[in-house]
């Protein structure tokens, strides 16, 4: 079947989608957006977290057909999403640019240099919250949504918001630091 939906502010069309396919599979394999990670395919790890009509969900548990006509934001569109939130207005991220994001990040030790990062992404880098990076996209999407909803989260709020995201490397302390840092920068307006 064919699925039409909006990804990172731009209309997209996926063809030859199998009816039982997940949104995650469509994003990664059909649209070439491998930012959302596939680690468990059963909702346990959160590494596939995207926003579906603004709401954080595990894209591995959304049937592709359920995304028809809806609005999806992935980690590739997070910088644009954050920019839009702070200054309003955006044409979205073209698919090629979104794919390019991954390529640039891959060839460059200054992850994503040349691409404007969302404040939460910068904070993860500055706080040293990224090790192997597999959990990072899901954590970024979940953390960004938390700060959108709750600009001054308590530690308990952060833990709660990120309780669906597993990280096998960092021990979570640096991730907590990163979210606190992004919240502090956000409230100082830097």
């Amino acid at each position, binding site marked *: 079947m064919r699925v039409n939906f909006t990804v990172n502010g731009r209309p997209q069309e996926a063809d030859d989608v199998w009816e039982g396919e997940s949104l995650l599979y469509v994003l990664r394999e059909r649209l070439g957006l491998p930012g959302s990670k596939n680690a468990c395919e059963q*909702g346990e790890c959160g590494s596939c977290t995207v926003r579906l009509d603004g709401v954080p969900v595990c894209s591995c*548990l959304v*049937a592709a057909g*359920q995304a028809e006509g809806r609005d999806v934001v992935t980690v590739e569109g997070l910088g644009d999403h954050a920019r839009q939130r702070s200054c309003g207005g955006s044409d979205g991220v073209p698919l090629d640019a979104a794919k390019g994001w991954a390529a640039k990040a891959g060839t460059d030790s200054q992850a994503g240099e040349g691409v404007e990062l969302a404040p939460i992404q910068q904070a993860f880098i500055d706080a040293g919250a990224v090790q192997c990076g597999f959990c990072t996209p899901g954590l970024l999407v979940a953390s960004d949504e938390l700060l959108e909803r709750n600009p001054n989260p308590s530690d308990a709020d952060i833990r709660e918001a990120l*309780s669906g995201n597993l990280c096998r490397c960092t021990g979570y302390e640096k991730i907590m630091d990163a979210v606190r840092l992004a919240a502090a920068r956000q409230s100082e307006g830097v």
Partner: protein
Amino acid sequence: MDFLRPASWEEALAAKGEHPTAVPIAGGTDVMVEINFDHRRPEYLLDLNRVGDLYEWETGEDSVRLGASVPYSTIMEQLRAELPGLALASHTVASPQIRNRGGVGGNLGTASPAGDAHPALLAAGAEVEVASAARGTRMIPIDAFYTGVKRNALEPDELIRAVHVKKADGPQQYSKVGTRNAMVIAVCAFGLALHPRTRTVRTGIGSAAPTPVRAEAAEEFLNAALAEGGFWDNGKIITPSVAKQFADLCAAACNPIDDVRGTASYRRHAVGVMARRTLTWTWESYRGARRTEGAA
């Protein structure tokens, strides 16, 4: 596989009537796991996401008519006052991402003995509103809904429209045992609701029998003991021997199994502990409410 996308409740019922083997998919948090792991290859997936009615709820005089697809996160945020037991239970489900998608309709559809909505619904008192294109609507009392391990009273052509949950008329609690707070399927769970208006106590036990169950003998014992001692009127602390007897009867209502999450004897023991604790917590808040009412 075919993907059916009804745009309204009537269309959904018609589709289910025409294809009784179709598997409804709401939040997908149970269905997609099975598909991803190839445990299930339904001929038809029946997407309920476009059926707006299922995401609405109405608060009536005595009960809340909760649309089958209202997500747990909405229940936690919007229905805490009316449905405190279910809101507490909702908060223990999985993670924010799962709670944003999953809801009570899916929990009832799966009818796992470990489903967290069940003990709360049993304790509060509820009826499941189901419908088919052929025979219209019928109400299934929650006590008659669970018919076996992961089996429920739905006919193949029926869908769940809503759950009518009694509005709380007293304190309610929900307690769950697991290895950590987030992302845990219950080793066992216990829901308890005080109903001061009818002077009754109701319970619900999860993950400790083939289906979610009430501890009816324990309820009867406690209702009689509370009446006899005039507890509802004098608001005294419940006698420890009464609480202990109640806990023992709740443990005796279990029919658990040994599995990877826990042994049968551990489950029985834990249900007794949770029964005593939730009774103490709810009774304390009942007494507190009486005191503030008395002072006002």
